[in-house]
């Protein structure tokens, strides 16, 4: 009844506590991600059943290969959500980065060594603007990133009128469409990115501080954690990841338009939340987000292959997203208990 008493009952007794029960040994943070990953695999297997002609590995490669943009962009989204914020400018940054890389490289590989850093820097700079607005001017993240997204989209439109007039550097195209040892290069990129992102979020002191700030801003303030600085950092990384996704997308499509990132915005949010993060902040790991991104990509694949009318596709997609949340939500509570 009284919170303190209930807390006392859930606490393991001080004597005779040797091995924790089995469900305590699985890191509860991993559970939603695992659940969603299982859902994704079920989806891929289901599509294999429906098309016995297709190979499982090709399906998997298609799911993975087309998920790379979401995988990369949702890491940044995840960091902002970890802080209890959100980044609605991701779609715009993707478009701007894609446009920039094709304008700057002008179809020549020789320009890449400086064009890539410049593009990434611009993406990061938009993130800095977001972060500063949120951390210093105390504008709510939802509004700050929404407004900055609209603003930068308008600026991008003003500068480029929406169309990159130069082709993308061939090296970038080869990166996205080539194979190494028979495996599409994007899959290697995904593996590298997932490792780097997981290490950053869950294996560094900075990552730990981000969790702390998202978990309890009040306590973080009392402890003297650099809240402002880390908030700016999170949004900067979000901008940076969006810019990387933009580079990849430009390479993949071998062309760029300003609006090409738009369809990715909502999926980044969905991937993070389906992966078990809380929009209140402080909870969730990148592996969960990664599983969420794969799940959404698998869902898209199976729905594409089903060849339904758009109306039915939407209904099924919406229902499956809710269903995945439902399955994952209950487990989550069970393990937390």
């Amino acid at each position, binding site marked *: 009844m009284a919170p303190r008493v209930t807390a006392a009952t859930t606490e393991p007794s001080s004597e005779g506590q040797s091995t924790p029960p089995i469900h305590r040994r699985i890191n509860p943070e991993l559970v939603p991600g695992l659940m969603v990953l299982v859902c994704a695999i079920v989806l891929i297997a289901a599509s294999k059943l429906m098309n016995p002609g297709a190979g499982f590995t090709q399906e998997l490669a298609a799911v993975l290969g087309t998920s790379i943009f979401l995988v990369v962009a949702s890491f940044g989204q995840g960091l902002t959500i970890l802080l209890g914020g959100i980044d*609605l400018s991701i779609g715009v940054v993707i478009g701007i980065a894609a446009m920039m890389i094709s304008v700057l490289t002008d179809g020549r590989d020789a320009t890449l060594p400086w064009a890539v850093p410049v593009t990434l820097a611009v993406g990061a700079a938009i993130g800095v603007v977001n972060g500063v*607005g949120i951390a210093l*001017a*105390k*504008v*709510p993240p*939802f*509004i*700050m990133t*929404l*407004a*900055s*997204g*609209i*603003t*930068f*989209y*308008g*600026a991008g*439109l*003003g500068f480029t*009128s929406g169309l990159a007039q130069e082709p993308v550097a061939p090296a970038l195209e080869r990166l996205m469409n080539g194979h190494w040892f028979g495996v599409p290069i994007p899959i290697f990129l995904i593996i590298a990115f997932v490792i780097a992102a997981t290490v950053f979020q869950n294996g560094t002191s900075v990552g730990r501080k981000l969790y702390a700030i998202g978990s309890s801003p009040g306590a973080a303030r009392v402890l003297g954690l650099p809240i402002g600085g880390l908030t700016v950092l999170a949004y900067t990384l979000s901008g940076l990841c969006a810019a990387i996704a933009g580079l990849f997308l430009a390479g993949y499509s071998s062309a760029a338009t300003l609006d090409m990132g738009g369809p990715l915005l*909502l999926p980044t*949010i*969905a991937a993070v*939340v*389906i992966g078990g993060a*809380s*929009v209140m902040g402080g909870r969730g790991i990148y592996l969960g987000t990664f599983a969420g991104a794969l799940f959404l990509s698998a869902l898209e694949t199976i729905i594409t292959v089903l060849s339904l*009318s*758009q*109306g*039915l*596709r*939407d*209904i*099924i*997609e*919406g*229902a*499956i*997203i*809710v269903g995945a*949340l*439902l399955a994952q*939500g209950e487990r989550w509570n069970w393990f937390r208990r």
Partner: protein
Amino acid sequence: MRIAERLRRLQISAGAAVAVLLYVLMYLVYAANESGVLSQFGITNLLNDTVVLAVAAAGLTLTVLTAEFDLSGIGVIAIANVVVATTSAGPAGWLVSLFGVLAIGAAVGLLNGWLVGVLRMQSLAVTIGTMIACEGVALLILAAPGGQVADSIANGLTGDLLGLPVAALIILGVLLLWFLLAVTRLGIALYAVGTDETAARLSGLAVRRTKLLAFVLAGMAYGLAGYMLSAQTGSGDPRASDGFLLFMYASVAIGGTSLMGGRGGVFGSVIGAGILTVMQKMLFALGAASFYTDVFSGLIMLVAILIGTLPRVMPRLRRSVA
């Protein structure tokens, strides 16, 4: 002092007051730069342009007050639009379709509210799901733009009634309902739940039911917004509400409602919707170059929010000086 107290009771925050000032300012600039703004025609047009967003934002505000996200609005508006376009013909069509869209909105709201309020799932993701599904339903009902909205709706709701634009009457009606709601137990519970869910539960409030009702009422408002949109467009288009969502959220935020819940109100959101509409008109009247309209929209939105947050910061500053 009495007035301030009364405003506070009607949940008209300082943020909303600033929004009103901003609105008046923009309206004056708009009127000064374009002829015919103050004519009956100009006023009716402006109100017609505002009413859909205003009603939708009013609904959204209810869920935002309970500290939840609701992205399903554009889905409901899309369904409402195609339903009105396919069912409103016939003598009593306007009434049937009105109740129809309200019921559809309530049903979607009920689903959202059940998933979020009762099953305690995260509203952001849940409503992304229901939004996509609703858009699918709209596409199933009407695969391409078409259908016909009954003239009684199309002309009746966009014209004048007793010398007043119907859109104005609708907005006033929504505000009146809101002011009533704000002083009912449900209204109070909305704020309590949004401010501190635990305290609200310990105080004996039915948190789940409150959230459920917030979503249901929001859904009905979206239905009404879809109805109004149909009146304006005179036809059905399953994609008519594309790109509407961000404007809904912007209206709520500019109106001084905190996205963290528990602070703000519908009045502010209606003004926020008005600001967004008049801003578009003002920028047009000032002749801002097309490519940069977005730049200005974004910046004005930010400025509005910044000014809106000042009153919350000011008392703290003043208290520290005194």
